[in-house]
C-alpha cells in the first residue's frame, strides 16, 4: 500500500490574500488552497470569489513570472456570497475556479492571482508560494543529453546553436533554417497529459465526439484514492520517461550511426521546460546566452521592421520604452536568476565573445561541456559554422556580425538609452556590460 500522506506532489507553503472591501470591490477571497495544502497529483486547483463594485470583472488571471498561465471567468455559483450580498447584482455567480498544471511550474514556485476589470485595471488578489515534487525518472545516462540554450530573441542564439551543432558530438536540426523544439514539444505533451483534468477524462468521458476531449474536462475524483494517486505520481514519472524516449528516438535518428552526446535547442527564459529536462536527464546542461541588451533592442527593432510585423513580444503600436520595461527587464531578470541554478550548472555565454574571438570562446564552451576541444577540432568547427551561416542574410540586420556590436550608440535615440540605463543598468553590470 502506498502511504498517501507522505507523498505530496504539490505543496503550498504560504498564501497572502488581499481580502476585504476596497474602492473597487465589495470583497473577495481565495478560499483554497490554504498554506499547508498538499495535492496528490501534479494539479493545483484555485478557488475563490470576487465581487466588484462599479466595473465588471473580465476575468481572473493566474501569473507565473508575470505571464498568465491560466485565465478564468467569474462563473461559479456562490450561494453563500449571494446570501451575504443580497443587494449586489452578480453575487450569485461571483466564484472562480482555476486548475494549474503542476509541471507548468518549477520545483519552487510563486504564482500571483489578479483580476482584470473591464477598463483594463488589474487588481492583485493573492500571492502563493509552494513547491512540487521533482520528476523521478531514473537512468538516462546513455541518452543524448539536452544542451539548452536559454536566451531571448535576437541575441545570436541561431549562431550559437549552429556553432555547437558543428561539433561532431552535438546534433541539431537545421539550426539556421528551422527552429526545431523537439524537447519543448514532448515536454509540453507531458505537461498537459500530467494534469488531472486530462488523465481523469479517461473515466466517464462525457462526449467522445468533442475534439480533444482527452485533454481536459471537469473530471470528478476517481473514487479510488490509490489508483488516482498512482495516476498522479508513478504514472506521470513513466509518462516523463516515455517523452524522453520520443526525444531520444528523434535525435538518435538525426545523429545517425555516429551518435551524439548532446542535442542542442533554444529555450525562452519564462519556460519551465529546462527545469523539467534537468529532472529527467542526468547530464542536461544549460547555456545562458546574452548580448548587450541595447544592441539586442536595436536588432529586434530592425528585424521587425525588415519583416514588416511585430515579434519577440513587441505589441502592435507599443513603444520602445514600454518594450524595455515590460518585456526585456522581466526576461533578463529570469536569466540572471537562472545563472544561480544548481540543477544545470549554467554557463554564461556572451554573443560578443562568440563573434569577436570565436575559437577561444568555443574551446572554453566545449571544455565546460566535457567535449573534445583540441585546437584543430575547434578551428574546424568554426570553419563549418561559418560555411553553414554564410548565405543566411535573411536572418541578419547588419552587414557583418562584428559591426553589430555597439550599434546601439548609433541606432538608439537618447531617451531610449536613458530608459535602458534605468531599467537594465544593474543587469548590464551583472552580465559584464558595465559601462
Amino acid at each position: 500500500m502506498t502511504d498517501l500522506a507522505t507523498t505530496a506532489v504539490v505543496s503550498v507553503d504560504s498564501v497572502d490574500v488581499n481580502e476585504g472591501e476596497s474602492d473597487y470591490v465589495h470583497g473577495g477571497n481565495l478560499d483554497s488552497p490554504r498554506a499547508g495544502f498538499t495535492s496528490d497529483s501534479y494539479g493545483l486547483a484555485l478557488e475563490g470569489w470576487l465581487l466588484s463594485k462599479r466595473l465588471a470583472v473580465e476575468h481572473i488571471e493566474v501569473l507565473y513570472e508575470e505571464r498568465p498561465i491560466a485565465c478564468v471567468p467569474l462563473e461559479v455559483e456562490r450561494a453563500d456570497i449571494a446570501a451575504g450580498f443580497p443587494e449586489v447584482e452578480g453575487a450569485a455567480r461571483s466564484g472562480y475556479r482555476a486548475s494549474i498544471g503542476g509541471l507548468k511550474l518549477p520545483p519552487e514556485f510563486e504564482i500571483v492571482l489578479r483580476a482584470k476589470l473591464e477598463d483594463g485595471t488589474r487588481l492583485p488578489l493573492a500571492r502563493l508560494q509552494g513547491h512540487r515534487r521533482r520528476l523521478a525518472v531514473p537512468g538516462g545516462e546513455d541518452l543524448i543529453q539536452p544542451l539548452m540554450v536559454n536566451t531571448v530573441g535576437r541575441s545570436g542564439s541561431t549562431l550559437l546553436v549552429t556553432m555547437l551543432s558543428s561539433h561532431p558530438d552535438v546534433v541539431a536540426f537545421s539550426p539556421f533554417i528551422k527552429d526545431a523544439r523537439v524537447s519543448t514539444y514532448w515536454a509540453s505533451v507531458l505537461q498537459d497529459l500530467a494534469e488531472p483534468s486530462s488523465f481523469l477524462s479517461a473515466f466517464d468521458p462525457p462526449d467522445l465526439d468533442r475534439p480533444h476531449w482527452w485533454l481536459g474536462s471537469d473530471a470528478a475524483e476517481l473514487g479510488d484514492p490509490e489508483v488516482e494517486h498512482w495516476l498522479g505520481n508513478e504514472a506521470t514519472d513513466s509518462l516523463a520517461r516515455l517523452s524522453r524516449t520520443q526525444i531520444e528516438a528523434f535525435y538518435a535518428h538525426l545523429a545517425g550511426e555516429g551518435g551524439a552526446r548532446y542535442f542542442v535547442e533554444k529555450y525562452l527564459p519564462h519556460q519551465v521546460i529546462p527545469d523539467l529536462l534537468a529532472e529527467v536527464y542526468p547530464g542536461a546542461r544549460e547555456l545562458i546566452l546574452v548580448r548587450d541588451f541595447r544592441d539586442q533592442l536595436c536588432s529586434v527593432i530592425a528585424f521587425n521592421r525588415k519583416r514588416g510585423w511585430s515579434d519577440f513580444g513587441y505589441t502592435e503600436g507599443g513603444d520602445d520604452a514600454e518594450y524595455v520595461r515590460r518585456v526585456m527587464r522581466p526576461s533578463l531578470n529570469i536569466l540572471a536568476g537562472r545563472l544561480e541554478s544548481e540543477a544545470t550548472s549554467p554557463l554564461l555565454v556572451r554573443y560578443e565573445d562568440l563573434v569577436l574571438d570565436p575559437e577561444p570562446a568555443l574551446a572554453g564552451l566545449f571544455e565546460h561541456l566535457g567535449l573534445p576541444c583540441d585546437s584543430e577540432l575547434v578551428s574546424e568547427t568554426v570553419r563549418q559554422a561559418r560555411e553553414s551561416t554564410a548565405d543566411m542574410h535573411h536572418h541578419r540586420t547588419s552587414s557583418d556580425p562584428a559591426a553589430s556590436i555597439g550599434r546601439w550608440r548609433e541606432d538608439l535615440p537618447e531617451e531610449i538609452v536613458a530608459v535602458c540605463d534605468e531599467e537594465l543598468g544593474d543587469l548590464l553590470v551583472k552580465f559584464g556590460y558595465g559601462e
Partner: protein
Amino acid sequence: MALVEISGVEQHEMAGGRLLGSRLDAPKPQGQSQTYGFEIVGWALAEAAPLTKVEVLQEGRPVAEAEPEEKRPDIATAFADVAHAEPCGFRIPVSALDLRQKFELTVVARGADGSHAPIAQIGGARATLPAGSEELIQPLMVNTIGRSGSTWLVWLLSCLPEAVAFSPWARDARVGTYWTSVLQALSRPQSYLAQLVPGPLEQRNWWFDRPDLRSGVGGDQGLEAWLGGEGVESLAEFCRTRIDAFYGRLAEEGERPRYFVEKYLPYQLTPDLLSEMYPGAREVILVRDFRDMLCSIIAFNEKRGWQAFGRAEAADDAEYVQTTVANSAKRLLRRLRERGDGAHLVRYEDLIKEPTQTLGGMMRFLGIDASEDAVAAVLAEAESQSLDEHRTTTKVSESIDRWKRDLPPELAEVCAEVLDPVLTEFGYEPTLTPASSS
C-alpha cells in the same frame, strides 16, 4: 514500404447542386504514401458564393476538413466571370490512423447556406500498426450501443480470473480509448510537424492540431517521412505502454491478467487500432433488441431528466431511430461480418435467459477454461453484486420484449421500416406491423 496505398479515385464530373466544377489533383489512383497519411489536393467552385469547407467523410462521419483558400490562378482564368474563383483550392492532410485499414472516403464541398455536394470518392488501404507482445494485458473489447446491457457484461467479464476492469458499476473507464485518441492526435502531421516548426509557444495547445502544418513545412523530406512513419509506430508503442501500465497497476498484486475489459461505440476506430497493436485482442459484439434498447433509452433519459445517447441531436424519436439507432445497428452488423472469427456475438437476451451457455461460449472464444465449474464460479461472483439504479425496469427479465408493451405504434412503424432488416440478421423477430405490438 508504402504505408498508404490508394486503390481508386472516382471524380464526380458533374457534381450538380450549386457547384460550377471541382477536381481532385491528388491523390492519384495507385498512389502511395511512405507515411501514415496523405494529402487530398484539389479545387471546388460554387456558383453564388465561396464554399465554407471541404470535408472528408468516412462512414458518414468527418475525418478531415479544410477551408478552400488556396489560390488557383488556372481556375480563376477558366471561370473569369466568377469573382471568388481564385481562392478555391484546398489541401487537406488526412491521417491514416483516423481511417479504417481498408477505407472508402467521400469528399464533400459545403456552402454557407447548408448546401453540399460530393466531389469524389477515394478508396485505399493503410498498413496496420506493428503488433506488440503477447505478454501484454490484451484488450477485451465490448463493442456496443448504450443501454444494451454493456455494464452488466463488462462486470461479468471482469469477474473472470483472467480479466481486469476498473469499477464497472461506478465508472465508465475508457483508458484504451483515451490513449488511442492521444495516438491519433499526435500522429497527425498537424501535430508532429510542430516539433520542427513550433508556433507561438505562449499559446496553449501550440503542439497539436495546427492547420498551418502541412507536409513539406519541415524542409527535410526524409525526416518528415521518419516522423510520419517510424515516429508514429513509436508513438503507438508509447500509448500501448501507458495502457498496460494502468491495467498492470489495477491487477491484484502478483497477478498478471490476460485481458482488460472496456466498452467501445460502433463508430469508433479504437477497436481497429487496438486489434492491430495487440496480437491477442478480442472483440465481443453485444446487441440487444434495438426496439427494447430504444425503450430503455427513452425511459433512462426521462428518469435522469436530460437527453443522452445521442438523442439530443435528433428532432424526435422517429428521427433518432432513422439516424443514430439505425446507423449504429448497421455498423455493428457490418463489424460482425468484417471481423469474422475475430469477433463473438452476444445477444443481451441470451445473456439474461441462458447465462451459463452464453458465458461459456464467450469463455471458449477467449481461450480460457470454460468448464462447468469455472463458468458457475464466475456467474456466482458476478451475481453477488449488481446495481439497481442502473435499471429502468424492476426485473431484468421484464426488460426483454418491453417494446411490445412500451413502444408507441407510430414508432414501431419506423422501427419496422429501418430496423427490421438488421434485427432479423441478428436473429430477432421482425416488427411486422404496429398491430402486433398490442
